[in-house]
């Protein structure tokens, strides 16, 4: 380790070069060619949030319809479309993408690198997600929305009982969003394993990053299942295969197996990032490292494994063999344990930390209050006999809203408030934040708690109406009333953010005194993230940094060069150049749209789209002449480092 006798030079010149190297390009084409992870991450988050609002409006419409028995506000046709859109939107277009957005935005920052591993793929993932969602909503506005529920059980979703293009749209939307999810998963895994800054060995990876790794692995193994399931559905509907046609040897239950082999892990994919948020927020607000880091990481991994062995508990009512069912009961119950351990670890952390209160923490409190209820009702659902009674009733509706809103939305809203200063450089209004929290907490419980009772009192889910005299009326009124509070809460939060973005107090680099690396950057972070790749010497990077914590030198500023480190100990290994802007991801997603949307209407469009996509892919991988020359020169060793008047650095091994 070289100790420099002088303070570091002024890096303004290098920063300017870096700014130029990593800058976004102007104009529409520039916007479409963007590959920066923060830009793409924010686009994910904003897009997903807009879909969340759409899903919320659909929820509100359903609550109006269910306000009174035999209501004629929506007919069965409209209601079925709306609840299908609500479920599909929330699961596929909001919950997963927004978590991915956070991952794309935060993971490279937390790891101390410049961008994700495959920036073009990242951009492609976003467009394909956006187009999938837009396609679904376009068809919705054209009255061609799916109406077979968000899990589109066959044969109801099959060619005979769902005529029209609705379910085809749904299946194709699944393909689009899953492709997007898969590419994000791949690049997050590779980024995390190969691009951590020196010193960030596996046991120093922030818990949020761990949660994203676990989620990414779950995505890699779960989402192919649903792509196959929805692909089969498309084939059945479009070219007449019989994979789900019982009479020709197919099986409707095959769909359920494959869907839930994805569908159950999907729930974990949605709330495990939430657990990561909770850990991040609690670390910052207790001022100590999370108690039981190893336990936390291993329970995440265990949850992921167990998550793949419980899918059958969505199918207890189908009449499967009893012995098998008992295994799934046991697995479903046991999955409580890892989550429970995490909760106890957090309690232990709070117990021994200096617990500060701010809106993000309020949401974490909300998470505890709500999510644990969802977890415990989950325990009930794991029991086969109880599941027989409450399966497909409002009890289940209540349960999974407690899990998903409690486990994902509360932490997510906490995360919004937590990282808001980092994105915008300004603080949100604490008062408004608290108001929106309390509105959400009260509204949520008023809406969904009665649903437990409704389910036990015999109200099945997905009914567009119900009959008077079923004793469900009052509770439904209550639920609908609660929805108003929830709507107000979201409204308050939006206003808070919109106003604070311009008028909020300037936040500074680290308003919360949080621990992860991104808080060492100015708010908002520069386009290139880190001028010098940092090094870390502890789990809580910011807290554990020495005053003279080394940074990495010897990397180029005029190229998008990143440092690749080793998987386990994050020793510097070699450098690689990342590609810059490229219009091809956008073009490729367009050609895929041509192929996959077109196939819904005319099979040959698939081939046309495939050929066009092949051309787009060649364009994608064709290196520009400048890149080539650069490479050639570099390989010949003729292109040296930049002469920037830096002191000649000396290579030094990390301790």
């Amino acid at each position, binding site marked *: 380790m070289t100790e420099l006798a002088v303070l570091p030079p002024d890096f303004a010149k290098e920063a300017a070069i870096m700014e130029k190297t990593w800058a976004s390009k102007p104009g529409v084409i520039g916007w479409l060619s963007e590959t920066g992870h923060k830009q793409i991450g924010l686009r994910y988050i904003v897009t997903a949030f807009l879909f969340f609002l759409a899903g919320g409006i659909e929820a509100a419409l359903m609550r109006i319809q269910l306000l009174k028995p035999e209501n004629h506000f929506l007919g069965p046709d409209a209601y079925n479309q709306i609840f299908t859109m609500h479920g599909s939107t929330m699961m596929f277009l909001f919950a997963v993408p927004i978590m991915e957005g956070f991952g794309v935005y935060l993971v490279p920052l937390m790891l101390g690198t410049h961008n994700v591993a495959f920036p073009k793929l990242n951009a492609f993932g976003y467009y394909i997600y956006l187009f999938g969602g837009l396609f679904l909503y376009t068809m919705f506005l054209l009255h061609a929305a799916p109406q077979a529920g968000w899990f589109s059980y066959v*044969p109801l979703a099959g060619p005979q009982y769902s005529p029209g293009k609705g379910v085809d749209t749904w299946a194709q939307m699944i393909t689009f969003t899953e492709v997007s999810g898969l590419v994000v998963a791949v690049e997050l895994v590779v980024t995390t394993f190969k691009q951590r800054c020196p010193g960030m060995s596996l046991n120093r990876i922030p818990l949020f990053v761990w949660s994203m790794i676990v989620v990414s692995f779950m995505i890699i193994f779960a989402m192919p299942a649903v792509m196959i399931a929805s692909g089969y559905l498309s084939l059945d509907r479009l070219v007449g295969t019989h994979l789900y046609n019982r009479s020709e040897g197919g099986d409707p239950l095959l769909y359920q197996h494959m869907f839930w082999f994805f569908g159950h892990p999907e729930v974990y994919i949605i709330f495990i990032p939430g657990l990561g948020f909770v850990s991040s927020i609690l670390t910052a607000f*207790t001022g100590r490292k999370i108690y039981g880091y190893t336990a936390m990481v291993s329970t995440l991994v265990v949850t992921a494994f167990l998550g793949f062995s419980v899918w059958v508990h969505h199918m207890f009512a189908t009449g499967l063999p009893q012995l098998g069912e008992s295994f799934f009961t046991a697995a479903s119950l046991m999955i409580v344990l890892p989550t429970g351990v995490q909760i106890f670890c957090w309690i232990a952390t709070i117990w021994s930390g200096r617990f500060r209160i701010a809106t993000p923490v309020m949401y974490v409190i909300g998470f505890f209050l709500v999510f644990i209820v969802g977890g415990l009702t989950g325990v009930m659902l794991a029991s086969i006999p109880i599941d027989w009674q409450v399966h497909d009733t409002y009890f289940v509706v209540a349960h999974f809203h407690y899990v998903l809103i409690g486990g994902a939305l509360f932490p997510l809203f906490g995360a919004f408030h937590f990282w808001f200063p980092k994105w915008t450089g300004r603080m949100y209004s604490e008062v408004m934040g608290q108001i929106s929290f309390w509105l959400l907490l009260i509204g949520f419980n008023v809406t969904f708690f009665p649903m437990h009772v409704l389910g036990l009192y015999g109200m099945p889910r997905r009914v567009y109406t119900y009959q008077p005299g079923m004793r469900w009326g009052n509770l439904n009124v209550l639920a609908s009333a609660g929805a108003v509070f929830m709507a107000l809460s979201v409204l308050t939060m939006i206003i808070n953010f919109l106003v604070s973005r311009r008028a909020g107090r300037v936040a500074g680099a680290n308003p919360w005194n949080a621990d992860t690396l991104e808080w060492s950057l100015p708010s908002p972070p520069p386009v290139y993230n880190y001028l010098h790749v940092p090094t870390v010497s502890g789990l809580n990077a910011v807290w554990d940094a020495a005053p003279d914590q080394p940074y990495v030198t010897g990397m180029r500023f005029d190229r998008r060069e990143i440092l690749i480190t080793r998987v386990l100990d994050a020793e510097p290994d070699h450098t690689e150049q990342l590609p810059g802007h490229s219009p091809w991801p956008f073009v490729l997603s367009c050609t895929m749209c041509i192929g996959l949307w077109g196939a819904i209407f005319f099979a040959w469009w698939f081939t046309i789209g495939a050929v066009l996509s092949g051309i787009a892919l060649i364009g994608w991988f064709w290196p520009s002449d400048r890149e080539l020359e650069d490479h050639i020169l570099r390989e010949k060793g003729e292109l040296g480092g930049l002469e920037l008047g830096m002191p000649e650095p000396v290579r030094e091994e990390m301790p």
Partner: protein
Amino acid sequence: MTASTLAPIQSALHSAGPQAASIEHLWWVFFWICVVVYVITIAFFFIAAIRGRRRAEAVDNPAHDRRLGIFVSTCAAVTIATLFGLLFSSVATGNAIGTFGKNKPGQIEIEVTGHQWWWEVKYPDALAPANQITDANEIHIPIHTPVLLRLDTRDVIHSLWIPNLHGKRDLIPGRVNKFWIQADRPGVYRGQCAEFCGYQHAHMALTVVAESSADFLKWKSHMGEGAPTPMTPAQLRGQQVFLSAPCAKCHNILGLDAYGTLGPDLTHFRSRPTLAAGQLLNTRGNLAGWIMNAPAIKPGTTMPPNQLSGQEMSDLLAYLETLR
């Protein structure tokens, strides 16, 4: 207008049969354990939060962490123990229910077939097929007798759920699910389709009438009889209307030249409490409205609207009145 006043209780917490009772019992076990767990966990959380609030500095040293370790592992151990307890009680209950009815005497077999959106109920008789009884949207069962339901569907997946008697079981194309129920208290219980099955999923209900064995046999022998011969001229004219209007294309009436299988069997349908799979009370007015324009009442139903003159309608109603 609707079946409100007669709507019987449909609730998992008001069990009337042994299966529902043991599930209800299990449910309360789970419920109270979960309440206790919740209260304890949240209490820990708030105690921790209050302690944390009071602290000036976070504590982060190995000795302290060891104490926390004891806390966390104790909690985890208790969790495991609780889960095992729950698992055991659940599996025990499940086994008891699963083996219920097997090898018990006096079984009755009923075939329940789901249609979009009504239930076809058949009491088959393997030895004497002529004694088979066909009914719709209601199941009569004798009390204290295990009843084996064979569940099948003609279109999409449905799920039979009579919460007061048992949990639900899906009706899946291509596989016949067996399902035991038993009622211990006489009464009328409501059931409903619990798997989303299309437009009128909300209006696919059925009633279960649990009655004494004597009443059940009386009902059964009544059901076995054909429809009574119409007596009055209006009834006779009504019968002709029934046969010549679209009715007989879809509906069956024993003893009459009407063998349709698309809609419910109407031989004794006026003895059923409800119309349209539990949506309407079985009154003359509702019946007239239903015949006149069923899709307006139940959008998507396969029962078409009928254009009958006033005279034809009143004759038809007069005839249908006899089908008790």
